[in-house]
């Protein structure tokens, strides 16, 4: 996939996300059958597993999120009718005005956008105009809500928030997570420090977090009760981070999926009731991830998947991010009595057809 093609898809995803906060398009559903919510485990397991398996992924997550948000935040506020000069001479604004206005824009547009996707709510806590610094708090963070994570995990949000503020103020911003709900669960929120590129304190924190990051996710067995996220947000993350880097990340995604599948299998093996195919179908349905139909054809396994977030709406023409293929492979291997491996995935109408072959 070319950079331009993936860029167009990401822009469409942002545009679709904007649709969530516009009154006239709020009720549009991307997935009328299964609904537009997907279990939070789907998103959390994908990001944390990729960060744990690949030391460089935290940086990819942060950078991709920054670039995507920076490009699209400006278009969003322009599409909402905000004039191009809204933040003119921000470095000369009084502290009081800067806090009021930035807080209002963030609350009305970006926090609302995240909230409508059930991805969290963003607050501007303080603004230091002279140093170009912002302190943000993020409650109900989708990346770490309800989990226990050892190590930083919210790189996507850090990049996104830096990109949003950078785009609004027309300057290059950076952001570091200074407190994480997943690590310091008592806080009930994540906190971010956003500042200008030249801010050494923040850049040092970012470098430290990215180098040390190896989060170990501790969460309940999927599905996570009452913890869902809008697939639009999951798609935004997929499109923003994975599509532009799919050549680099394809193998990593598959491997991360396998690891997630192994972990789930370990958790549910003891409660197994019935054959493995039915168990996997039931698990994916309970996570509202997708509808699966798993069939055996001679030695192969054919899985027909409907309502797959990875291939709906703006992503319908995109290359499939194969995390769930890895998950299916591990689950079928671990829960069944055969050894199979992922062979291919192809689009057939609105469905995805995933083929697994015997592992010889």
């Amino acid at each position: 996939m070319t950079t331009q093609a993936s860029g167009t898809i990401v822009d469409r995803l942002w545009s679709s996300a904007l649709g969530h906060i516009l009154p006239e398009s709020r009720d549009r559903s991307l997935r009328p059958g299964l609904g537009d919510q997907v279990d939070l485990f789907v998103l959390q397991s994908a990001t944390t597993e990729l960060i744990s398996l690949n030391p460089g992924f935290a940086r990819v997550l942060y950078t991709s999120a920054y670039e995507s948000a920076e490009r699209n935040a400006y278009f969003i506020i322009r599409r909402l009718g905000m004039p191009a000069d809204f933040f003119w001479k921000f470095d000369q604004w009084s502290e009081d005005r800067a806090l009021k206005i930035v807080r209002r824009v963030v609350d009305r547009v970006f926090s609302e956008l995240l909230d409508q996707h059930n991805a969290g709510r963003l607050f501007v806590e303080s603004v230091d105009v002279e140093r170009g610094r912002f302190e943000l708090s993020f409650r109900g963070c989708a990346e770490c809500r309800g989990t226990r994570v050892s190590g930083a995990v919210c790189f996507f949000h850090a990049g996104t928030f830096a990109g949003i503020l950078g785009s609004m103020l027309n300057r290059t911003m950076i952001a570091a997570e200074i407190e994480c709900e997943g690590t310091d669960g008592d806080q009930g929120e994540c906190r971010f420090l956003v500042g200008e590129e030249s801010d050494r304190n923040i850049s040092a924190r970012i470098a430290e977090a990215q180098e040390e990051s190896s989060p170990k996710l501790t969460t309940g067995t999927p599905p996570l009760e009452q913890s869902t996220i809008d697939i639009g947000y999951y798609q935004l993350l997929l499109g923003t981070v994975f599509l532009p880097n799919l050549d680099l990340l394809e193998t990593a995604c598959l491997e991360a999926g396998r690891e997630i599948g192994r972990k789930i299998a370990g958790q549910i093996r003891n409660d197994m009731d019935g054959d493995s195919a039915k168990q996997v179908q039931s698990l994916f349905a309970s996570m509202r991830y997708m509808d699966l139909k798993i069939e055996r054809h001679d030695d192969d396994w054919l899985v027909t998947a409907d309502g797959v977030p990875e291939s709906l709406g703006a992503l319908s023409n995109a290359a499939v991010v194969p995390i769930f293929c890895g998950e299916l492979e591990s689950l079928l291997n671990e829960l069944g009595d055969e050894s199979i491996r992922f062979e291919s995935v192809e689009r057939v109408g609105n469905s995805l057809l995933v083929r697994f072959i015997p592992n010889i």
Partner: protein
Amino acid sequence: MTTYRALALGILGALVLALLAPVLGDNGGAGYSEVVQPGLLFLASVLSLRVSFMYRSLMRRLFTFLAVFLFLFGLVTVTSLVDEVAMALDDNFLRALLGYQVITYAFLILALFVGVRVSGLGKVGSRGRIALIIFLILAVVIVARSFPTFQDLADSSGEAAAIYLVIRVLDVLAMVLVAPALILFAQNARAKHQESLSFSVIGIGIITSLVLVYIYELLSGDSLSDIAFRDYQTGSLLDALYIFGYSTLAVGIFVHWQHQEWSMRRVEQILGFDGDDDPS
């Protein structure tokens, strides 16, 4: 309300306010001009001071200097006050007026200097250069036009003639200094992250307030002293031009103040936040 709509309505309102002076004519045109001219300048001064609190650093200085300039400029349009001061100072009045004018314009020049510095808008384009040349030619013509009166005055009082010339040169100098800033702002009116439209209107207001009388002098063919005696604050066309200039200036500053609030409300309307609490 949008900024464009507010500017359009504001300028329309300025036009109505201005036309009222000649429409009233002998039936109160003079009294109307005597009240409205300083009133508008004081209003613009208060607005400029309010805007200065929206900023810190250079931008705060810019609007503070502009507020002081407008206040001082407004004071000399209060005819009754000027008459009393003239009587009290007698022969020293012209010298005092010159000193006052130097101080007044010093604030304007400071504001313009800070404005150009803070904007950092780059170079003037080819159209801008043509406009600048026109402004320079106009400046030269305005100064040249004063020589006959200057010579007449010089025959009776050298000092009065010198003061007369210096006041005119100061007015023209202010115009020449405002012009590049105005052109640069207009050039960037559509640029990303540039708040130029209301600034351009403020610049137009300053220029018209300063030099309209000289253009009126050029067009009418009369000397400035005749015009001042015959037309100033009498409900004349000259008064209408002044009122229009001052109103435009006040409108520009008001729109600059409200620009962000109007823009934000528009966004909130689109997002369906009508009447909700302000999160800030």
